[in-house]
């Protein structure tokens, strides 16, 4: 009996039609990779924040209430002395001066300001196109709204200027979540170009390009990053700074990829199947596209994915040191500047929230990179649990 059931399953499910392409095999392997999929959904959630950022954020990033400086995360209530409500509500704040002449934020517990969904808020462009005032949520204005009474919903508290940290995280996601994609595509182009030329042309060109790569790689990375930053003037508008930072990060990152691509081009160029393809009479371009590139693709995809955290961290580090994206434009890095005063930090620890988002973004890319590496590794036996 056991012998009869031991027929290899391959014979039962004979392939119908075309055999699976390497990419579809890799896709299925990735779908089975638990950490990779977790990272994928994490990144999807963060990119949703990028796309719908201004709809999800209750306030404009520059919308500030000076009186609510360092305001703690707003308490959301469902019941008070007057009874229970299904609709959540918050209490408005009022500034009072105590006996030591310190300004204190005092909750006005006599009135409820209800949380409303799809309510009118600061104007923004939905998906960057449609001008609208509708935001995902907001709170009612207090009865005696004016210069002294404020009802705000600050899910993650307020920063030094009384701006909503959660809203600024939503807007800041655009910088951190795109800088890696743009930076690594830039490095990919430089790396493919220089590595390809170096490996394909060889000789003197190869020698010069490789020595240049090595000379750049000899410089301590973070020092080089700082030095390149000072090539750009310090007073630039935030869009220019963004592209300057991308350029800087790409200039630090290209030699690594260029060297690896050169090595791969060299090794693939000499393989038997390329010789065979040439012998059959296929012209060079189809050989490169059909046979050389697909073989570097797996490595390139993995290394590009795993390089993205470097860009996210590089931007955050520069912004944290006041050399990157400048106030008032929010970025996760420059928001953390609020946390640099350690002695005062205990009075407003919620300014650390942006750091958690940097961590999540970096982890997301690391997880996806890990999953892709396993899925694209041709040596890995797919389906068999190791």
């Amino acid at each position, binding site marked *: 009996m056991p012998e009869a059931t031991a027929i290899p399953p391959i014979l039962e499910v004979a392939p119908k039609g075309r055999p699976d392409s390497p990419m579809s095999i890799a896709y299925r392997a990735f779908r089975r990779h638990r*950490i990779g999929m977790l990272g994928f959904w994490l990144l999807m959630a963060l990119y949703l924040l990028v796309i719908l950022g201004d709809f999800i954020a209750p306030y404009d990033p520059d919308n500030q209430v000076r009186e609510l400086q360092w305001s703690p995360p707003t308490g959301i209530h469902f019941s008070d002395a007057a009874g229970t409500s299904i609709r959540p509500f918050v209490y408005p704040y009022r500034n009072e001066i105590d006996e030591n002449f310190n300004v204190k934020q005092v909750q006005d517990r006599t009135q409820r300001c209800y949380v409303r969904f799809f309510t009118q808020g600061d104007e923004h462009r939905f998906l960057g196109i449609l001008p609208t005032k509708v935001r995902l949520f907001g709170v009612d204005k207090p009865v005696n709204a004016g210069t002294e009474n404020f009802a705000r919903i600050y899910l993650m508290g307020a920063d030094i200027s009384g701006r909503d940290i959660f809203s600024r995280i939503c807007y800041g996601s655009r910088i951190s979540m795109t800088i890696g994609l743009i930076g690594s595509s830039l490095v990919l182009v430089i790396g493919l170009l220089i590595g390809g030329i170096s490996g394909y042309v060889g000789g003197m060109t190869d020698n010069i390009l490789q*020595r*240049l790569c*090595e*000379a*750049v790689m*000899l*410089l*301590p*990375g*973070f*020092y*080089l990053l*700082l*030095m*390149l*930053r*000072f*090539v*750009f*003037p310090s007073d630039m508008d935030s869009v220019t700074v963004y592209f300057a930072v991308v350029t800087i990060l790409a200039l630090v990152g290209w030699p690594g990829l260029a060297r690896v691509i050169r090595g791969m081009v060299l090794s693939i160029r000499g393989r038997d199947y390329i010789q065979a393809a040439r012998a059959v009479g296929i012209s060079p371009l189809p050989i490169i596209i059909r046979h050389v590139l697909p073989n570097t693709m797996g490595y390139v995809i993995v290394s590009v994915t795993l390089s993205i*955290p470097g860009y996210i*961290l590089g931007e*955050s*580090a520069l912004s*944290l*040191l006041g050399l990157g994206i400048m106030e008032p434009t929010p970025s996760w890095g420059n928001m*953390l500047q609020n*946390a*640099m005063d*350690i*002695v*005062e*930090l*205990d009075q407003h*620890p919620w300014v*650390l929230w942006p*750091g*958690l988002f*940097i*961590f999540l973004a*970096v*982890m997301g890319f*690391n*997880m996806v990179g*890990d999953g892709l590496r396993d899925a694209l590794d041709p040596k890995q036996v797919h389906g068999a649990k*190791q």
Partner: protein
Amino acid sequence: MRAYIIRRLFFASILILLSTVVSFAILKLSPGKAGREDINPRMSQEYVLQQERLFGLNRSPVTQYFTWLGVMHCVKAEEPRGILQGDLGLSIKYKQPVSTVIVSRLPATLWLNVITILFTWFVAIPLGIWAAVRQYRWPDKLLSGMSFTGMSMPSFFMALILLWIFASHLQWLPPGGLRSLDHSELGFWGGMLDFAKHLIVPVVVLTFGALAGLQRITRGNMLEVLREQYITTARAKGLSESRVIYKHALRNAINPLVTILGFEFAGLFGGAALLENVINYPGMGQLILEALRAKDQSLVMSTFLIGSVMLVLGNLFAELLLAWVDPRVSYA
């Protein structure tokens, strides 16, 4: 072997020379003039010009580079000495020899990094072995989760969290820096304790970050070696499992790590630069940022030079060490 070392050092010195050209070119690309940071309107024009002459800033960039390098001194004896004569030049910002400035900051950075590396290696390698031996069981899964966190945790964020909890909230540790205000009154042991307290947060942060990578690499190497046929042979002839792992497998699994040790040597110098700036630790990382802000070119160039020399020496040292521990490797 000696010929190999000499050849390597010869090519490395050319490469280092090229890298100084790259860094000098980048430095000269940046706008603004060196040393202008601390010039105020009360200073006379003559004084400014005299300062520029003193630091050689009135000359062409190419001449400035060769002066720094010491080529000019070789040509004319009255020119200032340069790198080739073993002189790192004058710092514009600090008005002191660059070597004095660097020596005053270097120990803090070296202490931090040496302690971190010791901690990392003594913890990471045993953990890597432990995870490999228990592959896919709970200790391995726990460690791989931890190393994912460690790899993804930005050092500045972890430092800020630790400082919030232990310095700001509980007030057990100082809020960054290297010494307390009353450091000089604490005596020897009190002073040492004060240093140690300041080092806890940066060392923990750097160790946690470095641990992740090293633990994963050790685990990977170990797993690869455990699949080798001679391990099967060793098990088949009835050796105890601990003997198989620690005598047969470990020795070969450790070899690739020697290469990493070379990189660690280079990291001694600039590895903690960002963290130093975030926690206000007066080491090389802060120094280079100040030097770049002031466009203090001798200081910047010399710091970069030391960094690249350490990378080259670290790699060479690692290669020689690898040849020494692994008889299969030879550079003859």
